[in-house]
């Protein structure tokens, strides 16, 4: 007869693979990814228990996984779909609802990069801000070039809308996720006319004011776009607007920009 103690010891069993995988993902030592719809077609979104960790165009899964591993050093596996709450939050964000909170896993970022990305999250859908605006807002007005570099390294494009940051001369500028053409496509999908923006900028217009309120805005500020054409006043610099008796909009907070 096998002893009862031995029989009890034989009740040991092995855990399903999901126990280890699930625990490592939950603590942020491994990631999962799944596709989500975006204005650029499907995008792959990677996440772990700490938040969204990587976003890329949904092309070749092997290539996405390889890029992820090379940048984070963590393992990643394909999932059927995003967790429902995360998927909902991303859809709401892409639709312009900035109250939808999405946790981000920004380990490995410098504090400067994290500050740039957080500030970028504040830019409303359908509007753009110049690199210099981000630099000024995070209290580092001379770091315009570094802002551009930080945005080029944004691990979570679309979620952190780096496509809404444009060059200080008003041209649309480069985009890390598939190039400048994609940047234009997303901005157009968000209700902007990139061509018209660039045309106006090339004519030297950097700020728009209203001659009824005497408030001056960045061109894509919701308040600027609400000004009817007879009352639109165009300025090449903030100094010129101030001289004409205009004060800066408190919503878009225009700053002087070195082009």
């Amino acid at each position: 007869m096998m002893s009862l103690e031995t029989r009890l010891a034989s009740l040991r069993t092995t855990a399903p693979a999901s126990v280890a995988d699930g625990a490592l993902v939950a603590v942020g030592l491994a990631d999962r990814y799944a596709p989500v719809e975006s204005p650029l077609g499907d995008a792959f979104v990677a996440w772990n228990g700490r938040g969204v960790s990587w976003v890329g165009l949904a092309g070749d899964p092997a290539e996405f996984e390889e890029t992820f591993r090379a940048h984070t050093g963590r393992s990643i596996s394909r999932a059927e779909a995003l967790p429902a709450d995360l998927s909902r939050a991303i859809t709401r964000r892409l639709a312009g609802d900035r109250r939808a909170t999405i946790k981000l896993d920004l380990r490995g970022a410098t504090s400067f990069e994290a500050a740039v990305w957080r500030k970028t999250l504040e830019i409303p859908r359908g509007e753009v801000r110049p690199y210099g605006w981000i630099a000024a807002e995070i209290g580092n007005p001379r770091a315009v070039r570094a802002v551009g570099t930080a945005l080029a390294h944004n691990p979570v494009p679309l979620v952190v809308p780096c496509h809404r940051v444009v060059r200080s001369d008003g041209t649309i500028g480069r985009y890390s996720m598939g190039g400048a053409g994609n940047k234009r496509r997303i901005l157009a999908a968000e209700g902007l006319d990139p061509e018209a923006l660039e045309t106006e900028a090339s004519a030297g217009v950097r700020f728009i004011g209203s001659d009824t309120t005497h408030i001056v805005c960045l061109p894509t500020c919701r308040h600027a776009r609400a000004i009817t054409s007879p009352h639109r006043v165009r300025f090449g610099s903030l100094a010129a607007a101030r001289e004409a008796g205009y004060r800066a909009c408190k919503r878009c907070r225009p700053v002087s920009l070195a082009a």
Partner: protein
Amino acid sequence: MDTDVRLAARLAADLDRAFPALVNDHRDRLYTIALRILGDPRDAEEVAQDALVRAYRAIAGYPPTRTIELRLRPWLAAIAVNLARNRRRRHDDRRPPVQLEALLSDGFDRADEAAPDGPASALRRERVADLAELLLELPPAIRVAVVLRHVDGLSVAETAEALGRPEGTVKAQVSRGLDRLRILISAEATANPASHPQVSAGRGFAAAEVLA
């Protein structure tokens, strides 16, 4: 040096690097502890995963001097037992102990792939399931002590530490549990001899192998 002592030192030095080793070394026993306390594989899966996550978060908040002193086996068992206890309280009023059919359909039939020898493997499974079921008939406090001491294989001292009970209490509870199980086994064998063949030492096999 004991594996867990070495692992505790590695966790204290670099949690993120060492944690996968903790998962690897302890996931099966945490799953087993939860499964034998709760009876339901899905609940056990969640408890085991949650226990590992809580362990990570706890260590993340500990100074290295505390982590290095951790006795991982009883400490992790305590986390799993507490989670299983909370879950059992939530479930108690709405479910009877798990049925054999449920065990077979919830992953226990992997034995068929490992040892596809028809009726014989079915019998082995049944026998394992029987003892697992009888275990679920023990009162919770006693069941937990038996599971830690004899299924997981902790020492009396470690079981006492994991449960926060005096060693004397643990010894008494384990011994009462074993007595109770022997009574249940013989009652079962008398009631239904066909479903409960005796296991001879000569034909003995590790059920864990069948289940793996």
